């Protein structure tokens, strides 16, 4: 039995340890994706809470692919939030002082100013493009999985990704980041 199936079985049986393991395994991916989608770290944490409370309440909604289920739930909550507020926070500013930015050697290597510029460039994408770019690069989802999750053709997903990434690249090139 795979590790994920074991965790899911534990969750079905009401095992709190399994729930905690799932949370620790996926929380950072989920809060990263949520923050990029809604533009507000605090709202992203609230989304994360809703997703895990729902997971604990109704684990049998998951048929397969736990991570895909969790990322889809985050996307749905982000959409709910954006629909309610009709705006997305231009939150990033300087990432160095932003909450939730733990020390990370990889990030230091990349340069925090460059990361800030990249996230600000993401702000300029349409919601549809941003969802796909973020799910692929920060959520680690394949295009095929994204297509199934968002109910789009794989061609649409790839096309939106290409255009979105190119837009970000152009914005970063203007700032001489890439």
């Amino acid at each position, binding site marked *: 039995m795979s590790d994920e199936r074991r965790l899911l079985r534990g*969750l*079905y049986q*009401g095992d*709190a340890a399994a*729930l*905690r393991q799932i*949370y620790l395994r996926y*929380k*950072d991916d989920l*809060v*990263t994706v949520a*923050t*990029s989608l809604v533009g507000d*770290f*605090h709202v*992203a*944490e609230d989304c*994360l*809470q809703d997703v*895990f*409370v*729902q997971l*604990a*309440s*109704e684990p*049998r*909604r998951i048929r397969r692919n736990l991570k895909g289920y969790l990322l889809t739930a985050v996307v749905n909550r982000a959409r709910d939030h954006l*629909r*309610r*507020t*009709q*705006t997305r926070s*231009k939150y990033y500013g300087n*990432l160095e*002082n*932003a*909450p*939730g*930015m*733990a020390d*990370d050697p*990889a*990030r230091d290597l*990349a340069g925090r100013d460059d*990361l800030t*510029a*990249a*996230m600000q460039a993401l702000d300029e994408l349409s919601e549809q493009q941003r969802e796909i*770019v*973020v799910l692929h*690069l*920060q959520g680690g989802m394949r295009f095929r999985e994204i297509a199934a999750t968002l109910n789009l053709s794989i061609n649409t997903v790839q096309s939106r990704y290409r255009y979105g*990434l*190119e837009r*970000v*690249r152009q914005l*970063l*090139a203007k700032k001489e*980041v*890439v």
Partner: protein
Amino acid sequence: MTSAERTEDLIRKARRTTRVDVDERIMARAETALAQRKQAHPAHQHTSGLIRRIIMNNNRIRLATAAAVMAAALLGVYALTGSFDGASITVAQVREGMEGIDWMKIINEGDTVGDGRVELDMFSFASRVHIKTDMEGRTVYQDFQSGKQFHWTPGSDSIDESPLDANREFARGAAGPFAMMDQSLRLIQAERDAELTKELGTRDGRQVEIWTAQWSNNGAGASRTLTVYVDTVEKRPVAATFEHGQAGGGSYRESNIEFEYPEVGPANIYQAGAPESASIVSTMKK
């Protein structure tokens, strides 16, 4: 590494991690939900997913548009033009009418009025307190003077006390209700070219001026309409609605907002709705 690869690399590396106190809060909530499910459904009921889907598909409980957006609509005229041609009430009068307000209560009934489900925001500009209650009754009491926040979920016998993030500003840094609306509005309206109209009317028996802002939603015929009702005597906004016009014709209302200006408001999480029996569990550093 090509510039496209470098772009992908940067986005991948811009990662976040949750805060420890938030981890504790989320796990506590999730474990409570897990225990409740175990207790309520020792033998799993396969109908629960279907029932939930039916409930979630019900228009009556669709999530409402946030009150803050409605509030932002109030002074769209001001943000776009600085004045409202032909209006008997000027923006300056509204500003004056809102001066000195301490408590402001924003009640968002979503797309259905009278079903008892509302989303509440209360702001005290004197005490720097923001209280938010969502449609499920979850309440957050944020005290920006003491730097503390309290979370309570209906059915829970505990209240989580945690520090407010130092980067979080009360009412996004606004000094009062007028500034808050104006500030929010500027954010929203900056990219839109709204058509603005006004007319006199009545609402709940009182004379109001009705300010309307409409803009194209996606360029394909869909539209959004914000309507704000301003009391002609008090010179304060009393209500607002938000409608979505569909490209093929027809429209539906997403939000019904009422504004109230109470003299006083809840002094703590208990007065905001948490039961006296709930005990406070603190994650504040000693």
